[in-house]
């Protein structure tokens, strides 16, 4: 078995293929258990719950992870940005919705900028601790603005069409918001994996010093990554709001962990230098399939989260453990040959 695996061409050994297999396994299991409810069209409809908002946030955090940093304030960033959008649109006469959206994106960018500045200026502090503080800060500001109220009332196209609308394609109902993220993915893929600036991001995450010596503008790249991350978090909040229809200061609580989990499951490493857009998409699909299935079987959000947590630990640990066993086996085999000669 091991021999057979090591003889496969390199592209087949990639992590992405393991995710594809897992997706098929999950689909087979749940469509066996719930043939009525676990169908492709129904799953497609559910993607709006499980794939879009968290997907945008995962795309943002992916770049930060590739750089070897982390940001756990993205849930709070989403909440604050959505709050700004809702309040500026609803207050008094309000401003045009499009301007409110621009302000929302700007808020996300500023949140990211603050994280980036703190992290690059104070390299002796852990990004985890810094963004833990800004997380409290951003959500705190959202609370000051909204208190315990929720802000709603959005244009119809936003909460109806974007939030729940879909269009028909080959007889399937495709959610509009799913198309939004699917449209972003190829651009993101080309940028990260095929362009020079994407290559430099991976370089900076692999060896910051050597990249700097090679003329990579590592400081700028970091700042840009955190700003982008803030904007993507705001977009995540935007799509989440279109679904929920209103904003509270608790919006997107815990989304940072989900987004990080998706990126890591998709092949990113928290020590930097690794990450994949294709893997991220597959991880999103896998999670959608899994959460849907678990929800159908147990109908209990607590069990759902528990199982997802366990699975994540397993899936992230498996390659690591497999590698260790393989190394031990090689040593054992070599000792045997040593004895024979």
């Amino acid at each position, binding site marked *: 078995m091991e021999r057979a695996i090591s003889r496969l061409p390199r592209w087949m050994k990639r992590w992405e293929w393991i995710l594809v297999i897992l997706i098929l396994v999950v689909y087979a299991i749940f469509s066996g258990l719930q043939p009525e409810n676990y169908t492709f069209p129904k799953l497609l409809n559910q993607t709006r719950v499980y794939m879009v908002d968290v997907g945008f946030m995962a795309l943002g955090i992916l770049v930060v992870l590739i750089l070897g940093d982390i940001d756990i304030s993205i849930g709070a960033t989403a909440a604050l940005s959505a709050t700004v959008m809702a309040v500026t649109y609803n207050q008094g006469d309000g401003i045009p919705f499009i301007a409110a959206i621009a302000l929302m994106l700007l808020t996300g960018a500023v949140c990211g900028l603050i994280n980036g500045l703190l992290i690059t200026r104070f390299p002796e502090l852990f990004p985890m601790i810094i963004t833990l503080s800004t997380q409290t800060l951003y959500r705190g500001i959202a609370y000051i603005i909204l208190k315990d109220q929720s802000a709603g009332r959005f244009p119809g196209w936003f909460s109806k069409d974007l939030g729940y609308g879909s269009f028909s394609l080959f007889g399937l109902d495709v959610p509009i918001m799913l198309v939004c993220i699917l449209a972003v993915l190829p651009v993101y893929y*080309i940028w990260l994996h*095929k*362009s*020079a600036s994407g*290559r*430099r991001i991976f*370089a900076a995450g*692999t*060896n910051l*010093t*050597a*990249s*700097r*010596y*090679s*003329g*990579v*503008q590592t400081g700028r790249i970091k700042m840009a990554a955190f700003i982008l991350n803030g904007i993507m978090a705001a977009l995540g909040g935007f799509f989440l709001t279109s679904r929920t229809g209103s904003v509270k200061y608790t919006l997107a609580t815990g989304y940072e962990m989900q987004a990080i989990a998706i990126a890591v499951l998709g092949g990113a490493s928290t020590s930097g*230098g690794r990450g994949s857009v294709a893997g991220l998409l597959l991880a999103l699909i896998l999670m959608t399939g899994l959460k849907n299935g678990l929800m159908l079987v147990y109908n209990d959000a607590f069990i759902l989260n528990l199982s997802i947590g366990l699975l994540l630990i397993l899936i992230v640990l498996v390659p690591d453990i497999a590698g260790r066993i393989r190394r031990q086996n*090689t*040593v054992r085999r*070599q*000792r045997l*040959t*040593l004895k024979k*000669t």
Partner: protein
Amino acid sequence: MQKEGLILQMEGITKIFPGIKALDDVMLDLRRGEIHALIGENGAGKSTLIKVLTGIHQPDAGIIRLNGEEVEMTDPLAARRRGIAAIHQHLATYPDLSVAENIFMGNEQTGGKIPAISWRKTREQAKALITSLGSDIDPMAEMGTLSVAQQQIVEIAQALSQNAKVLIMDEPTAALSLRESEELYSIVKGLKEKGTSIILISHRLEDIFSLADRVTVLRDGRYIGTWDIRETNSEMLVKHMVGRTIDQFYPKKTAPVGEQILKVEGLSRTGFFEDVSFTLHAGEILGLTGLVGAGRTEVVEVLSGVTRPDKGRIYILGEEKDITSPHEALRQGVSLLPEDRQKQGLLLPWSVQDNITLPRLDLHQKRGILSPESEAKTGDEYIGMLNIKARSGRDTAESLSGGNQQKVVISKLLTCGSRIIIMDEPTKGVDVGSKAAIYKIMCDLAAEGYGILLVSSEMPEVLNLCDRALVMREGRISAVFIREEMEPEKLLKAAMPLDKSRKGNAEYA
């Protein structure tokens, strides 16, 4: 089948890495109290043999006997416990810890009534070890603040702290100046007299002739032979290593020196160097030499934007420039080959070709997309030009031998196409054949009008290649020589620290 006086025998050692036989039926035996040189081209398998001996790699075949008894080196600790200590090619110290902590890492000194680390004991023992090596390094100094030479002494102290019977040194002098090498070698001789057996890997044949008792040559992972040092000479060894003779080692530099392209005035960085001024011209190879720690690396790091100066001006092609980052330096036509290839030069997990193209990705774009063909072509070009031993450009940098990694860093520098080329110890760890190739490239570049600033501790390199040489001493330029005036004694004298130069004179006169 133990022979008298042999402390260590390795027989039939074979080590296969995916796609390459790094060692093929290699043998090595070590007598008690001898210095045994191990030589061969870059990628010949020297470091791999050492890693097999110290338990870092497991051999695919072969036997290791220690004092006639067959042993298995299952992991580095097993080797250490049996009295085998190694100073590896790429230093493995903890820069943030103190010297004493580094020495007793993994072998902590407990003492007193409670079973905790006794820092007093650690400190005292470290001090004693360092003194026994004739050095005055402060045991509480942070490792990262020491020079490479001092770090090497600490590594030797670490080896001694475990009562090593066999000490292995993989290119210990690759970055050391003559003076520091000699200090290190006198320590090595002292150890030999105390009965330690030593395996020494070095690309400097002079060192081998002055130190070693016997020499073993490897080529392409195969054992070529072992000779008593008195039976050999340098042509013969080169022939055994390379498989051919090298006729012209230092090419004749004919390029005329042209216009001034770089001028530095009163450059200072407090605590590192003071008031450094010089000029560099098109077609010139300017040497920058001196002891390690004299501030040479710090000067070139300022020129290439890695650090900022406190005072002084830099003019490029007559215009004053503020070089704020390596990126900016590259734009102004200044490139640096950094001192530490593994930390500053390479992305170790990346492929050779991705490393080579990183500084100039703009050359490989088509409509904003990187072209894999163009990158592969550049990779192959340099692999051929510098004779980098890799199966293809897609091999990872970490799978290459030390010297071949160095050649990848040189390739990176050459792709930049900068008019001002700064090289910090470019031939560190590079074998004779490839050294000749690099010297040839340097002379060709000079002929095309590039200006080269060569930081080097290798006296022959400076004497044979440079049009002029600057000597640094304790952070200042102490002398400038033109080619006709360059003599080893003069260079050495200018490099000696002032308080030592008077008594040091006799040694070098």
